[in-house]
C-alpha cells in the first residue's frame, strides 16, 4: 500500500515549486500557489514596481510596508545575524557588478566543472566590515522600514525559505505534506511518514546521498544553477560579502537540515561560504552534507544513509 498524494507544480521565484498534499485537501495546493505568487510579486528585486523595489528606491527614509515585506526583511536580518554577517541582504551592488542585474530565469548556466577549473584560489568567505545590514531599521509597531542611504536589499534565498515556512503553516492540518521551493523544503503534517530525500549531485546529476526525514526542513544552496561566463572568467550568485565578489570556498553545494526552511537555507548558505572544515562543523548540529570542488561528499552530524531524521 502506498500513500496517495496530489502533486501540484508551478514556477515562481525563478525556480520550480512543488507541493505534495493530502488528496482530500487538494485545494490547499492552490492556496499555496497563490501565496507564493503574492510573495513573489512583493519580494522580487527584478521588478522595480514590486514592494521591495519601491523600498529600495526610497533608501534613507522611513517607508511604511506591508506585513509581508516587513516579515521578509526581518527574516533576512535574522539570517544575517545568525550567520555572523555571511548571509548579507545588502550585497545587491556586488551581485549586480558580478553580472546578476536581471533575472537569469530560463538561461542555461555555464558548466560548473569549467568554472571550477578557471576559478581563483579557494578561501573562506568573510563578512563585510562595517556591516550595513546592522543599520537597517525595522519598526514592527509602525510597519515601517528604513534602509541606510545608498543601501538596497536582495532577499534572495531567505525569501524562498520563508515562503516554504509560510506554506507549511497553511498546510499544518494535513496528515502529510511537502513544500519544495527549488530545493528548500518543508516536510510535515499531523501524521507524517518517513520520506526519502535525495540530494542531487551538482556535477553529474546523480543522487549524491539519500536520507529519510519525517518532519522538518531541508535546504540546498550551491553554485550550479546561477553561474555564468564573464569577460574575466566565471561568476555566480553566492557573494563573499567581505570581498564583494563571488565566493570560491572549495564547497560547491551545501545541504542543511533544520526545524524551519529559513534556518535550513541560512545554514546551507553559511556552510558553503565558510568552506569545507568550518562548514561541516556548522552543519553538525542538525545534520547536513557538503559537496566539494572535486565532487566528494562530506556528511555532517547525524546524516547517515538510511537514518530516519526529524529535523525539528
Amino acid at each position, binding site marked *: 500500500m502506498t500513500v496517495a498524494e496530489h502533486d501540484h507544480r508551478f514556477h515562481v521565484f525563478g525556480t520550480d515549486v512543488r507541493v505534495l498534499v493530502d488528496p482530500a485537501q*487538494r485545494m490547499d495546493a492552490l492556496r499555496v500557489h497563490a501565496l507564493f505568487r503574492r510573495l513573489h510579486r512583493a519580494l522580487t528585486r527584478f521588478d522595480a514596481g514590486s514592494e521591495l523595489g519601491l523600498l529600495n528606491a526610497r533608501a534613507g527614509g522611513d517607508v511604511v510596508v506591508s506585513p509581508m515585506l516587513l516579515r521578509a526583511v526581518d527574516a533576512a536580518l535574522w539570517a544575517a545575524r545568525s550567520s555572523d554577517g555571511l548571509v548579507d541582504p545588502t550585497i545587491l551592488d556586488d551581485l549586480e557588478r558580478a553580472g546578476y542585474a536581471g533575472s537569469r530565469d530560463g538561461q542555461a548556466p555555464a558548466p560548473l566543472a569549467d568554472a571550477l577549473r578557471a576559478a581563483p584560489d579557494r578561501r573562506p568567505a568573510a563578512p563585510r566590515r562595517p556591516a550595513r545590514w546592522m543599520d537597517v531599521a525595522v519598526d514592527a509597531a509602525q510597519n515601517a522600514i528604513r534602509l541606510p542611504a545608498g543601501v538596497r536589499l536582495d532577499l534572495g534565498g531567505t525569501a524562498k525559505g520563508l515562503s516554504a515556512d509560510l506554506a507549511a503553516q497553511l498546510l499544518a492540518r494535513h496528515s502529510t505534506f511537502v513544500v*519544495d521551493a527549488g530545493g528548500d523544503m518543508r516536510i510535515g503534517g499531523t501524521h507524517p*511518514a518517513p520520506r526519502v530525500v535525495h540530494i542531487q549531485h551538482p556535477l553529474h546529476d546523480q543522487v549524491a546521498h539519500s536520507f529519510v526525514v519525517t518532519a522538518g526542513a531541508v535546504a540546498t544552496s550551491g553554485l550550479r544553477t546561477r553561474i555564468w561566463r564573464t569577460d574575466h572568467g566565471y561568476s555566480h550568485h553566492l557573494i563573499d560579502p567581505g570581498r564583494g565578489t563571488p565566493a570560491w570556498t572549495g564547497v560547491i553545494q551545501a545541504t542543511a537540515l533544520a526545524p524551519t526552511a529559513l534556518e535550513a537555507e541560512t545554514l546551507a548558505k553559511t556552510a558553503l561560504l565558510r568552506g569545507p572544515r568550518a562548514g561541516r562543523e556548522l552543519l553538525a548540529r542538525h545534520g547536513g552534507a557538503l559537496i566539494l570542488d572535486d565532487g566528494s561528499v562530506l556528511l555532517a552530524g547525524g546524516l547517515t544513509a538510511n537514518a530516519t531524521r526529524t529535523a525539528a
Partner: protein
Amino acid sequence: MTSRATPATHRLSLAATVLRLAAIAMVAAVLVWSVMFADLLHKHSDSAAALAQPSGQLTAPDGGQRAQAPAPVTTRTS
C-alpha cells in the same frame, strides 16, 4: 357478444395509467440527473487532474512496494 367496462374499471385503468406515467417520469428524471452528475464528476476530475497529478510510488529494491511509503523528494541547487 360484447363487453363494456364498468365505471369502476375505467377509474382503475386511469389510475394505473397515471401511476405508470409518474413512474416513467421519475425514472427519466433519475436517469437525466445521473447523466448530469456523472458529467459533472468527469469535468471536475479533469480540471483537478490538470492541477494535480498523483505523485509517484516508492518502490523497494526488490520491485515490491513498501507499506505507506510517501513519494521521495529531491533537494538541489536552485
